[in-house]
């Protein structure tokens, strides 16, 4: 089906694949990632076994998600926190705004969170006159550039140091520099002031731990820690699939996530948040709220075949392994979640008719499935999505008819032979031009030989 999203994808993919500088930047950044991740995986005694263990834990969690979510809720409440069940993005946004109104919030500091991207929270806050500030350096650069994150883990993977220096010059009036350290200090100085004056901190949650009611956060800049500990109110917006059963499961999942995400043994800051500030504690927020976000996830949960897509820990490894992502980059997808995992889940989380083209924009090479630390059968789910798309009429009558004729042809060796003769005749005379144009515009197509293998076999092969 031709939709605006599809046309936009094709247009952006065309522009981005032709932009050799862009492709070179991505390739360089992913090469750096590849080297780090190879070292990261090598730290595991048995990486494949670790993947299997993680997949088994996630499988168990997702298959009993109802139970684990309720356990989590009870523990959060027992710790003095609050839970809000958000069925839709609108519910989640509405609850954040309600909390903001109740607490007279003017400024929000945010640490990196894809769920807040998913629900378009910043726009909703701004519309209410509340100033959201992204405090992850990459996200901060996105925010001042007015861009969406390019990658779920590395939001400005498409930018070079020089690009960032120029952005700071233009948007912040910073002096020109080619030093990464100086650039970081410029952002740091700006952000410190914001932390001190913010009324609310909003984070995501890398894991939600059922048996303790804690949120686990993984980061490298300390900005998440400041975001949830300095302001009066902390709101964590967490997808319901982020549950893990036990605190001790972090012993596997923290290193698994950092190894796949950045190649680190463990990220620089790993925090566990177990509720608001208690009596006799010197820091922490007065109120701790967890918003558990469904927003289409239960539709995926109901799909037994693809339920394992909810295992995802958002490490970004499938994006970095994907040859499509490496050539078109993250913005072309037009989705919150890019790359293979995004192409798999977006038709489930959002409108399938609008987003199924992404499932076709893959050569099905399987590099994603090969690297997924929780063993999601990513490229096979793209096939499942394609089948579902055809079942719901995504293909249109012309393509459907073509495949009926094709099947009728292939069901008979005589019809197959006649069709092949006609096709080859057309090919040799250059009559198949318009049909093959997407191929022949920039690649040669082979000229069919005089005789097929079948003919060779009939005439000579069998007796040889």
């Amino acid at each position: 089906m031709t939709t605006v999203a599809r046309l936009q994808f094709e247009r952006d993919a065309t522009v981005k694949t032709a932009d050799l500088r862009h492709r070179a930047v991505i390739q360089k950044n992913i090469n750096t990632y590849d080297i780090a991740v190879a070292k990261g995986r090598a730290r595991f005694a048995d990486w494949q076994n670790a993947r299997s263990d993680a997949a088994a834990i996630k499988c168990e969690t997702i298959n009993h998600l109802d139970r684990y979510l309720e356990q989590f809720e009870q523990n959060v409440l027992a710790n003095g926190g609050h839970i809000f069940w958000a069925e839709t993005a609108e519910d989640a946004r509405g609850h954040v705004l309600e909390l903001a109104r109740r607490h007279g919030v003017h400024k929000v500091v945010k640490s990196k969170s894809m769920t807040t991207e998913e629900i378009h929270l910043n726009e909703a806050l701004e519309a209410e006159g509340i100033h959201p500030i992204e405090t992850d350096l990459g996200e901060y650069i996105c925010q001042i550039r007015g861009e969406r994150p390019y990658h779920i883990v590395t939001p400005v993977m498409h930018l070079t140091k020089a690009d960032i220096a120029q952005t700071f010059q233009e948007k912040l009036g910073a002096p020109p520099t080619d030093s990464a350290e100086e650039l970081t200090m410029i952002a740091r100085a700006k952000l410190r002031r914001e932390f001190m004056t913010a009324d609310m901190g909003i984070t995501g949650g890398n894991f939600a731990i059922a048996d303790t009611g804690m949120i686990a956060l993984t980061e490298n800049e300390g900005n998440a820690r400041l975001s949830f500990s300095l302001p009066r109110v902390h709101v964590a917006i967490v997808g319901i699939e982020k549950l893990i059963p036990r605190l001790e499961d972090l012993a596997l999942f923290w290193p698994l996530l950092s190894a796949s995400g950045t190649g680190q043994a463990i990220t620089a800051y790993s925090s566990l948040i177990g509720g608001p500030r208690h009596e006799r504690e010197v820091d922490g927020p007065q109120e701790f709220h967890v918003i558990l976000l469904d927003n289409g996830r239960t539709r995926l949960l109901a799909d037994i075949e693809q339920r394992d897509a909810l295992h995802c820990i958002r490490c970004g490894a499938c994006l970095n392994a994907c040859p499509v992502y490496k050539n078109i980059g993250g913005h072309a997808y037009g989705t919150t979640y890019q790359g293979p995992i995004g192409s798999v889940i977006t038709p489930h989380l959002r409108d399938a008719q609008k987003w199924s083209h992404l499932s076709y924009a893959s050569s099905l090479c399987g590099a994603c499935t090969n690297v997924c630390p929780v063993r999601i059968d990513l490229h096979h789910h793209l096939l499942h999505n394609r089948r579902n798309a055809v079942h719901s009429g995504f293909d249109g009558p012309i393509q459907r008819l073509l495949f009926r004729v094709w099947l009728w042809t292939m069901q008979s060796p005589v019809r197959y032979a006649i069709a092949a003769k006609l096709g080859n005749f057309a090919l040799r005379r250059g009559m198949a031009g318009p049909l093959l144009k997407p191929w022949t515009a920039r690649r040669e197509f082979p000229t069919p030989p005089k005789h097929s293998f079948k003919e060779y076999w009939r005439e000579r092969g069998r007796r040889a």
Partner: protein
Amino acid sequence: MRVALFIPCFIDQLFPNVGIAMVTVLRRLQVEVDYPPEQTCCGQPAFNTGYWDDARALAKRYCEIFADADAIVSPSGSCTAMVRNFYPELLGKATKATTHTYEFAEFLVKKLGVTDVGAKFPQRVTYHDSCHALRELRIKDEPRQLLRRVRGLELIEMDQAETCCGFGGTFSVKFPMISYAMDEVKVSSIQKTGAEYVVSTDSSCLMQIDGYLRRQNLPIKTISLAEVLAST
């Protein structure tokens, strides 16, 4: 030993020499070959586009045609993966025909236990891993073992041997810009090796790579593993 040949439709029509080369090698190894003439297509184009009912009809057809074969050998990792890995999902069960279908290189090394087929090909070659052979069938060493035993052949690995060439069946015409960019990445990796030939188990990948090489007038040639092994 007697084997049935499964010659995928595009090899039958566009690259018959690949099938003929496979016959040559198998006969050289005293394997009796049979070719069921009713065979057409494995159904992968329909399956990959989402037409599973259409693909299922061809899967049933394949299983009937090859029901009696003890081993079915094909010069394509992609079509072998379709039969061995995806037919069971389509049909709800594996059959003797699905479990006994082998890609040519894996058949030689794993089933016949042969790595030296008596071939001679005095050229510098690099090997391209087809995604389906590599990641669906886990065929990585077998083609390399066979190539190392070819007289005069020098195997030079490329840095991106395992990266997709960008063919992907209808993907190559539905999203030609992405497919072409992937082809470009692949060819640049091939060029860096200084090889004269690119070899692969899969002629579909080679068609994609060759399409780029010829349009750019690059001096590198493509050749199937079967044709290399048939050379003397």
